């Protein structure tokens, strides 16, 4: 097979998959407003995804806060601008680092778990069993999971941001003897609604992408244990890549609004 025909085949597969994911997303929006609402299952998923990701998000963001401060400090000291540290760190964390790091952690933790769980349900015919009993597996399995991750991610981002800022404060307190009140006064002076709102909106889309990709990969998983592994793996890879694309679009759009 020649190189060009290989590229053509891959492009075809990519476009087919893109079409399938678009249809899947459309079906999600169609089903989400339909009764019955699976409130109990939604809350269970929110607990699973939110509470159980909290420790991982917390540790990651805490370390990111420490590292960001430690690495930036010497450069700012050179210019005698170390007092700007809280402002710089808070803007970087709230606008960009907090949302993207939290989303990447969740893509690994939640995306893979959704892909593997739905994949093994598909392989063991549990989804087929739901379908033949006349219930709607899409509503019960997909809508609840996508909704849960979409709602939980912004909350995790807010908590992650706070923990990262606390990590940065610890460095400032130990190295620069900066008090808690002074540090956080400067943080809140420098953060505006224009920083928080776009980051929160972006986080919803991050959650939606992780949920849709994870569910799609699991729901249409190929037969066999290899299929489950592939579903979990590609859920993480595709959603992580998608996060950067969404991030770029979000920054681009936000920039346009700032210019207006």
């Amino acid at each position, binding site marked *: 097979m020649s190189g060009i025909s290989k590229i053509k085949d891959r492009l075809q597969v990519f476009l087919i998959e893109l079409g399938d994911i678009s249809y899947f997303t459309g079906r999600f929006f169609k089903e989400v407003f339909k009764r*019955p609402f699976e409130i109990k299952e939604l809350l269970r998923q929110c607990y699973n995804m939110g509470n159980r990701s909290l420790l991982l998000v917390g540790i990651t963001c805490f370390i990111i806060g420490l590292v960001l401060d430690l690495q930036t400090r010497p450069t700012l000291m050179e210019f005698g601008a170390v007092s700007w540290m809280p402002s710089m760190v808070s803007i970087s964390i709230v606008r960009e680092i907090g949302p993207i790091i939290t989303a990447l952690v969740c893509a690994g933790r939640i995306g893979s778990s959704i892909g593997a769980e739905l994949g093994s*349900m598909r392989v*063991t*015919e*549990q989804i*087929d*069993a*739901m*379908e*033949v*009993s*006349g*219930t*709607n597996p899409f509503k*019960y399995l997909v809508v609840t999971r996508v909704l849960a991750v979409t709602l939980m991610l912004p909350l995790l981002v807010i908590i992650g941001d706070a923990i990262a800022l606390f990590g940065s404060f610890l460095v400032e307190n130990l190295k620069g003897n900066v008090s808690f009140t002074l540090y956080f006064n400067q943080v809140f002076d420098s953060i505006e609604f224009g920083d928080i709102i776009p980051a929160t909106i972006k986080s919803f889309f991050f959650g939606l992408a992780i949920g849709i990709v994870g569910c799609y990969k699991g729901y249409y998983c190929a037969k066999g244990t290899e299929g489950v592994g592939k579903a979990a793996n590609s859920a993480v890879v595709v959603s992580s890549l998608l996060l950067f694309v969404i991030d770029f679009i979000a920054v681009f759009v936000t920039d346009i609004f700032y210019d207006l």
Partner: protein
Amino acid sequence: MKGDRNISHPDIVLQIKDLYKSFGDNHVLNGFNMKLYKGENLVIMGKSGSGKSVMIKCLVGLMQADSGLISVMGKDITTLTQEALDILRADIGFLFQGSALYDSMTVRENLEFPLRRHSKKKHKDSNTEALVLEALTNVGLAHAIDLMPSELSGGMKRRVALARTLILQPKIILYDEPTSGLDPITAKEIIILMQDVQKKYNTSSLIITHDVDCARVISDRMLLLIDGIDYAVGTYTALSTSEDPKIKAFFKH
């Protein structure tokens, strides 16, 4: 190949006419025909990969046939809307080969799941509890009501799956390899259970199996699926004494 769509014989609860299904160049079903009469046990046998599972999945709408007629209680399922198909599905029970119990739910929740969610058969909470207990008692597993599927043996899982199938009180039950993977004693218990269920609920059963003993005990009629068609139909005695080498091959021990 959509031919005669007017199937009104009162005793036929399920009928397949000229069913074709291919996967690329692999022609799995090549004009398959079948009738299931009210209250009968029809056993379908065929080699692995002969299309039995494809046929049964087409029958409940899990797979789309290329062409042909599939009629369940007089309704052509290939022309039904999703909503109408879901309502009809309450009358068809499906026992999966691997039991397909929802492994994140207890036995009780497994049985409650179709009951609470099926649009046609929603029950009040008190009624649900009674129905769950009744179904579990019928399969001799009332004591396992709060266990997780991972805590059950293969035979128990199959019984719970049967209880879950019975809870919507279907008129037709489709069994996909009901005794596969079970030891001979448990397999025999499952066969007896299937007979009891048939008597108690007056269901019609379509049983896909490789187990000749199961076929001998339970079948009213047998159908051999060979080369994608209904190669032979008849009673166990008639088929097991046939001189046709293709048929004989199924009954060699």
